[in-house]
């Protein structure tokens, strides 16, 4: 039933390709209280590539994302982040490496005791950046997500969708080399989900930052591959009929296994019973 991975072949990774790949999983497994969650998962993210991670709820998508920047440690296998093996890296070194990634959490995870300005500029504040620079960059990041008016507000006074957009601003403010989106549209209404998808596409097409996007909503996933961001019109537009974004590819998890790793056309053409059922 497993679709053989076609895009990535981590076992054949050379030192050169390791440095090229922002992220590489090599036979990664993890279990909680004896129950396996991920079993021998291998894939990679190439420069400029957006990988959409699909799978049913509770399959371990968020766990995979937390493994990707060392928030969790695997039981076996190796994870390379920006060419460095993070599996056994001390937390002190990992903290520094994580500043090169941006992460959008499922429920935003904004610091509720801080204003939007301090949330978005958190990394800059920790680095003792001058206040004027922080203000300028926070305004720029908030303008990107079209929430500049929330600068002085607290997260508690924002709606769910606005919090998600602030979380995106926090993730991109320091121009990360890899962005990890954990179900950015989860629990949002269709209109707000569209806004979030537009922001993800905008980030992908404007900054070309490699990313992993976790979702269980197929509609969001296919919006990502069939749309592009029109900078002049400042909105997301559909690609011409039959065209897809070549740098947006799929990973599918099922029962802890990576059952698909490849581009959109291969996913749609797959004869795997689970995939056919999942995509139906």
């Amino acid at each position, binding site marked *: 039933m497993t679709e053989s991975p076609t895009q990535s072949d981590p076992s054949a990774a050379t030192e050169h390709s390791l440095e090229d790949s922002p992220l590489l999983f090599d036979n990664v497994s993890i279990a909680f209280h004896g129950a396996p969650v991920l079993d021998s998962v291998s894939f990679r993210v190439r420069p400029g590539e957006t990988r959409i991670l699909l799978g049913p709820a509770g399959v371990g998508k968020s766990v995979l994302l*937390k493994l990707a*920047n060392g*928030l969790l440690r695997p039981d076996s296998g190796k994870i390379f982040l920006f060419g460095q093996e993070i599996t056994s890296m001390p*937390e002190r070194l990992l*903290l520094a490496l994580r*500043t090169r990634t941006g992460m959008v959490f499922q*429920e935003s*995870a904004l610091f509720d005791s801080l204003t939007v300005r301090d949330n978005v500029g958190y990394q800059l504040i920790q680095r003792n950046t001058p206040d004027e620079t922080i203000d300028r960059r926070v305004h720029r990041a908030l303008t990107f997500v079209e929430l500049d008016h929330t600068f002085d507000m607290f997260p508690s006074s924002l709606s769910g969708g606005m919090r998600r957009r602030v979380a995106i601003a926090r993730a991109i403010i320091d121009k990360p080399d890899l962005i990890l989106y954990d179900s950015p549209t989860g629990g949002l209404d269709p209109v707000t989900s569209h806004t979030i998808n537009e922001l993800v596409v905008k980030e992908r097409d404007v900054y070309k930052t490699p990313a992993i996007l976790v979702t269980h909503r197929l509609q969001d996933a296919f919006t990502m591959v069939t749309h592009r961001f029109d900078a002049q019109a400042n909105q997301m537009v559909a690609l011409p009929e039959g065209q897809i974004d070549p740098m947006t590819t799929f990973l599918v998890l099922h029962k802890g296994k990576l059952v698909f790793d490849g581009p959109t056309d291969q996913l749609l053409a797959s004869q795997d019973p689970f995939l056919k059922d999942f995509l139906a």
Partner: protein
Amino acid sequence: MPSDTIPEKLDKLARRWLMSVQEYSLFCWQAVTNLFHAPHYWPDILTQADLIGVGSVPIVVLTGFFTGGVLALQSAASLAQFGAQAYTGRFVSLSMIRELAPVLTGLMVSGRNASGMASEIGSMVVTEQIDAMRALGTDPMKKLVTPRMISTIVMLFLLTVVSDTVGTAGGAFVSVFISRQNAAQYFSSAYQALVFADILQGLTKPLVFGFIIATIGCFQGMKTTGGTQGVGRSTTQAVVISSVLIIFSDFMLSRVMLWLFPPL
């Protein structure tokens, strides 16, 4: 699946308890060693000092004053039977400085702040704010735990001094205005009874109690699981464990102090 026998249950309980002790020891070690590694979050230390110290002043003043008062009230009646009412000041100051001020202040601050730390950090854990902090390159142990530990130790020391003073004053108030004793006699008796060992004992204890309150509060918060219900559980456990440890360590410290400085 057959349920565990009693020895198996005891085995699991002992293992879990040992694991918790090990985790707590490592947690404390990390919190302490962070003192010697940058970055140091001085603004957070000051903020916590304000929350823990200044915020606890009203309850510490009230508790200290009425404890000193009730000590004077009870002891005056007992001492009067032996014609020793003049020793009320000595009794109150020794009891307050050696035992009651550090322990009661510790318990008050534990109830107020260990619970606060556990619930605040626990809420941050369940809403993934701790993960977000790590993802943004900040060590939560350095940012959240070590500042709380420093602030609690320093502020509990100072609050104990406040409680000593207010407790002695409460005893004086009752002795002078209710028991109709001479104020000069009370203060003279209270002052002359004290020796270096009493002061040392009374001011060493809050340092240990402060460490217990902060580390237990933060530890319980950090290992919170199970959503809002888990936060409530952590909060309760933080107060219960820190209170019991305060009483236990008070006993141990008293034993050590009496061994080091035997009464003349």
